[in-house]
């Protein structure tokens, strides 16, 4: 028995699935838990809607160069400074609402006069890619550490447990900004200019190092309770190797918490990366960055509040959609939870 008995009861307790008009005939079609989950998800209108929004954001990130070339501008050229009549003597857009026009859909960046639309599209690309990388890394490390700790127990569990406790006691935002230069200094000589890819890598490293403990702790607890269940014991008694127990008995039962944790983590990492950019310790100029747009926005909002709206509203839409999607996935995986 690879799947826990609870999944089987779920399927039975879901009359809407079995009482499907197609299945009302004599033939009863068996469905895997994955199919059941997909059917439940498809029926959830909020979930599907937010999934479309989230997908759209990922498409924008992936297709940023295509979008920019169709639109005909790039995020680096200082249009406002090259063309007269766009910025006034203080560096603010002359046209109302931050310089929005047919040429510059989202207006111009005050000061440098770059195009806000392409800045945003490329910025989403930078931030989302970092968030995705960090989510994957923290999830993999967290799962490995959590399962190891919970499965082996004893001294290994004690050591990993203390490391997790210490990491979770850290004021993480403070450590994020403090460790970033340390990681960088370890990789680059002081005389050299930090290359862009290195800053990218060190942001990923710092976010991962400070991030894996949460999911590891959760999975450790899950494994501890699963380990005592009969089906795991049965597998052990019949002589299954530890690898088989972990991959065939434990992991299939851990997919739900893993996916739920990952969907919770991704918007948090988008926020954390943007926070670094906002504090001025994230991605450096001229690489476009979602978070650094807020840094500019905070400096210019007295005179040009429009500039702040585009990164702000787009991030709000993304995070709300992603959180709703996470809720829907959770409901689809586990129909017993009622919010």
């Amino acid at each position, binding site marked *: 028995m690879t799947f826990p008995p609870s999944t089987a009861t779920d399927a039975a307790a879901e009359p809407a699935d079995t009482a499907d008009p197609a299945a009302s005939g004599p033939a009863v079609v068996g469905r895997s838990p994955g199919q059941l989950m997909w059917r439940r998800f498809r029926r959830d209108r909020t979930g599907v809607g937010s999934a479309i929004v989230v997908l759209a954001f990922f498409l924008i990130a992936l297709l940023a160069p295509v979008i920019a070339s169709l639109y005909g501008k790039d995020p680096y050229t200082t249009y406002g400074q090259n063309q007269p009549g766009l910025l006034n003597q203080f560096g603010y857009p002359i046209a109302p609402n931050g310089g929005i026009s047919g040429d510059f859909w989202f207006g111009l960046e005050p000061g440098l006069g770059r195009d806000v639309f392409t800045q945003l599209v490329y910025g989403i690309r930078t931030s989302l890619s970092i968030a995705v990388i960090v989510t994957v890394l923290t999830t993999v490390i967290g799962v490995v550490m959590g399962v190891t700790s919970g499965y082996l127990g004893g001294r290994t569990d004690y050591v990993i447990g203390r490391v997790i406790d210490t990491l979770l*006691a850290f004021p993480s935002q403070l450590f994020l900004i*403090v460790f970033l230069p340390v990681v960088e200094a370890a990789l680059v000589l002081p005389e050299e200019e930090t290359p862009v890819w290195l800053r990218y890598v060190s942001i990923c490293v710092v976010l991962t190092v400070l991030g894996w403990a949460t999911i590891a702790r959760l999975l450790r607890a899950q494994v501890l309770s699963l380990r005592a269940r009969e089906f795991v014991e049965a597998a052990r008694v019949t002589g299954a190797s530890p690898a088989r127990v972990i991959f065939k008995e434990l992991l299939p039962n851990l997919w739900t918490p893993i996916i739920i944790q990952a969907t919770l983590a991704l918007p948090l990492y988008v926020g954390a990366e943007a926070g670094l950019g906002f504090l001025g310790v994230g991605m450096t100029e001229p690489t476009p960055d979602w978070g650094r747009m807020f840094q500019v926005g905070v400096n210019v909002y007295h005179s040009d509040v429009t500039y702040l*709206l585009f990164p702000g509203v787009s991030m709000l839409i993304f995070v709300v959609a992603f959180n709703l999607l996470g809720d829907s996935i959770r409901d689809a995986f586990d129909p017993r939870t009622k919010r």
Partner: protein
Amino acid sequence: MTSFLVRRILGALMILLIISAVTFYLFYAVPRDPARAFCGKICPPETLQLVRHNLGMDEPLFVQYWHWLVGIFAGRELVQFGDCPAPCLGYSFATQEPVFGAIVDRFPVTLSLTFGASIVILAFGIITGMIAAWKVGQPLDKIASASSVIGASLQIYFVGPLLAFYLVDTMQLIPRPSYVPVTEDPVGWFTHLLLPWVVLSIIFTANYTRMTRSQMVEQLAEDYVRTARAKGMSNRAVFFRFAWRGAMIPIVTIFGVDLATLLGGAIITEQTFTLHGIGELAVRAVQNNDLPMLLGVTIVGAAMIVILNIVVDVLYAFIDPRVRLT
């Protein structure tokens, strides 16, 4: 109680020791040499050696760490900067001011910010959560749930400037955020920090609304509530005298965990409203590559979290009579 406190404080010191050792090692073991920065662009090897000696960096790393630790409790003599009385966290490489003094100067700002925000979060979050639980399934509950989803998705650096633009710049309802010492002018302290408090608490309040609601709903289904109702207790009494107490216990626990995140939020809030707190000090130290300042801020930040967590555990025993602090 006493033995609990002693054990928790010893444990806290242990954690701080580990954090400081790790941070110290990471900062001073990296190849970026602070002595070189001090020495200037053209730096002959002899001068570099001298600067390194003056900064106490020619000794083995654990000796340096030991000196740093002793300095906190007994003070120390620094060749470069002169006498540094206890508690000594060294001198800033960038501004030459004593690190401890700089942190003490900034501390009231960050403390006022987190303290006020905590009160807003708990008061507002618990009240809205209770209202939602009182009216489960009704429009008011749905509004509270929907707005908590949006609230939790907002970013400080977006809402902050936006509210400042409309409330301060356009409508001029409240003064521009800044720090007025509470001892000088309590009213000014309150009005000038009102906006930062609200902004910092928005993202957290949503979470507490959701949690209070679900906890209350759960508590109201418990047997003891049914017993109370069966004995003829009014709905209001059940709600505010029984279920409320049970629902608060997990809230306090989560709040203890959230304190660290709240401090992180305070850093971003300080930067948003240019308040001169510890967060701003940390950000500037990072930009200047100012190692003693970074180390000092990290340790003080960690100490703050650890101490507040002990306070939360003690509060826990007051709320829940079943918890014995042994």
